[in-house]
């Protein structure tokens, strides 16, 4: 059982929890993730580590309520417990030697991009951050990003906050102006990462994407999280949980990843509905 040390509701669909897990807090590096279960019968879900406090022994996770398990997790409060919490899993993001980086976060992906931006800033790199959201009510972490970025662009699809448009617009402008980044690190919906990669391609800037497939064990034993990379014309299978979650954006078969991510769509919709109804009934 793992205790929830604190909870912050960042907006109606995004929650931040600090969970007591000293071993994980000591080891986790930016880019790595944990797998948790909310209760005894629950499914295992991966969530990226948004930060750690080794002294307090706590691990920060920021997640969006998108399904049954995240819904249950969002209902948990300070002092309550979750059943299981394991990590740190995956390979940490490679940050050594990067001097000028563009961080592009989409939606709750920004929460995941946060520790990477912070670390780079700490290391003295020049950090340009572009954070994009569907609309004003789901903008999160703007202040935190401002603190660790030399430049910050806040985009909303509908223009209700910041600039209107998606994250590739400021990226394209900078690249067309001849700006050369050592690396673009992008985290968010697959379609967003796909288009960031397409935008960067003509300018030959390296792109690191953070993949978020369905996972079960997270340690390399089931292959459920596998994705296909095109490496020099050859198709190579990799496991996101051990070889990733970071990959070279130019090599990833995004369409396949998007298709695989939809595999249990109907089950997930039904489970989410059932869970929401349970909470509605409790409230009544």
């Amino acid at each position: 059982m793992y205790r929830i040390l604190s909870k912050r509701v960042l907006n109606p669909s995004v929650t931040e929890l600090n969970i007591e897990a000293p071993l994980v807090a000591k080891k986790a590096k930016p880019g790595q993730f944990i797998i948790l279960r909310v209760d005894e019968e629950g499914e295992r879900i991966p969530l990226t580590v948004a930060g750690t406090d080794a002294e307090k022994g706590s691990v920060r996770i920021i997640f969006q309520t998108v399904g049954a398990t995240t819904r249950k997790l969002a209902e948990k409060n300070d002092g309550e417990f979750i059943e299981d919490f394991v990590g740190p899993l995956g390979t940490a993001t490679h940050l050594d030697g990067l001097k000028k980086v563009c961080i592009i976060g989409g939606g709750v992906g920004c929460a995941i991009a946060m520790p990477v931006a912070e670390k780079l800033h700490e290391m003295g790199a020049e950090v340009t951050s572009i954070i994009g959201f569907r609309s004003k009510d789901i903008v999160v972490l703007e202040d935190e990003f401002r603190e660790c970025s030399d430049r910050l662009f806040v985009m909303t699809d509908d223009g209700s906050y910041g600039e209107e448009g998606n994250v590739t617009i400021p990226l394209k402008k900078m690249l067309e102006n001849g700006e050369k980044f050592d690396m673009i690190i992008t985290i968010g919906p697959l379609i967003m990462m796909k288009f960031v990669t397409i935008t960067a391609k003509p300018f030959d800037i390296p792109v690191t994407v953070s993949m978020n497939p369905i996972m079960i064990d997270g340690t390399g034993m089931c292959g459920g999280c596998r994705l296909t990379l095109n490496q020099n014309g050859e198709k190579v299978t990799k496991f996101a949980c051990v070889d990733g979650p970071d990959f070279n954006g130019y090599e990833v078969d995004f369409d396949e990843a998007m298709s695989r991510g939809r595999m249990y769509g109907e089950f997930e919709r039904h489970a989410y509905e059932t869970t929401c109804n349970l909470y509605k009934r409790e409230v009544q």
Partner: protein
Amino acid sequence: MPDLTKRNEMPVQDPKVRARNFKEVALGYSEEVAIAEAMRCLNCKNMPCVTGCPVNIHIPEFIGKIKEGDFEGAYQIITKSSSLPAVCGRVCPQENQCEAKCVRGIKGESVGIGRLERFVADWHNAFVTTSPEKPESNGHKVAVVGSGPSGLTCAGDLAKKGYSVTVFEALHTAGGVLVYGIPEFRLPKTIVKKEVETLKALGVEIQTNVVIGKTLTVDELFDMGYEAVFIGSGAGLPVFMNIPGEALKGVYSANEYLTRSNLMKAYRENPDTPIMKGGKVAVVGGGNVAMDAARTALRLGAEKVYIVYRRSMEELPARREEVEHAMEEGVEFRLLCSPVEILGYENPENPRDERNGFVRSMKCIKMELGEPDERGRRRPVEIKGSEFELSVDTVIMSIGTSPNPLIKSTTDGLEVNKKGGIVVNEDGLTSRSGVYAGGDAVTGAATVISAMGAGKTAAKAIDEYLK
């Protein structure tokens, strides 16, 4: 007069009924039948059966106790050598081990040694409520990596000698392959839980959700004060064929399929973890895992289940009882066949069709057996032009597993062989002093009982080392 050349029958659930439920298939001997079966044992002086047992259980001795009706006495004898008797009685390939050597088997059927072991263990678990006594501590600490059969056995043997043992388990439940790999209808999880509770009563500490190699390294375990480490991390790395279409939705490794069903309980009516149910399923492979996957698929409502195996029935490596049960339940065996490509559904007129990207069929080719390979097994060779398509919705790749490279990559100086198995001497000692290993992590995917044997050997060696 009973015909002593024939074994007493094991009552089983009717095949048509059991193919749709997850309850245990074999129902177990009653006391009368157990005694009757025990009476068949000739109590041979040179005990060939014992030599067939990887942990050398004193077989004629425990059977002798059953004859007297002293079932607890029989249990005490078995547990001197085996720490998981309820498990082994159910999953050991006795036909290749103790029962293969049984003298009764020369002219008739061997004594049902496995069935008797199961009977004794189940009787004990049902009627004996006293916990084993926790031995006095000898002041030494040992760490065990992995709570599968080899890890649990090593931990149990060391705990009985007074060692303070901590078992580190990566998953959220202890048991390893006993909980994630072997289905409920072959090995009820309540039994595994009971065996784990017995170990805890002996003083073994089990820490779940700790991945050695990620959360902690082997070196850190020594820093924490553990004086020796046993690695029983198993062979959990799945193998795919690398044929086109393997990334389609509906293609699972057997590990994923079984983990969803067994560990995550997706077999239940309203599970929290999804799994594809129903439809037509092809399981590629011929081992016990393939049988488990195929029989699980039936129970999850599949209308048709195929075993696709590239050699013939003679070479099929699964335990005979599993093959028989699978056939009785209606699994169709397509032998001397191998997949070449998996084809998916694609609606050219609707890119948003929900069926897009799902498996619709598997192209296979017929095989024939050619010259034997280095191990004497006849090599399967494709018969040109014999391709055919099997209409399926789910494909389960069950062609083997290898040791997970995580421990090797995070432990300096740990030697592994070409297949990724940790290199050990006959005591289970690795290339690093104080570090031992056993089970699938060393041999690659094998059996529960050989993993247990390795756990025993290492426990003995660790005890010598720390004396």
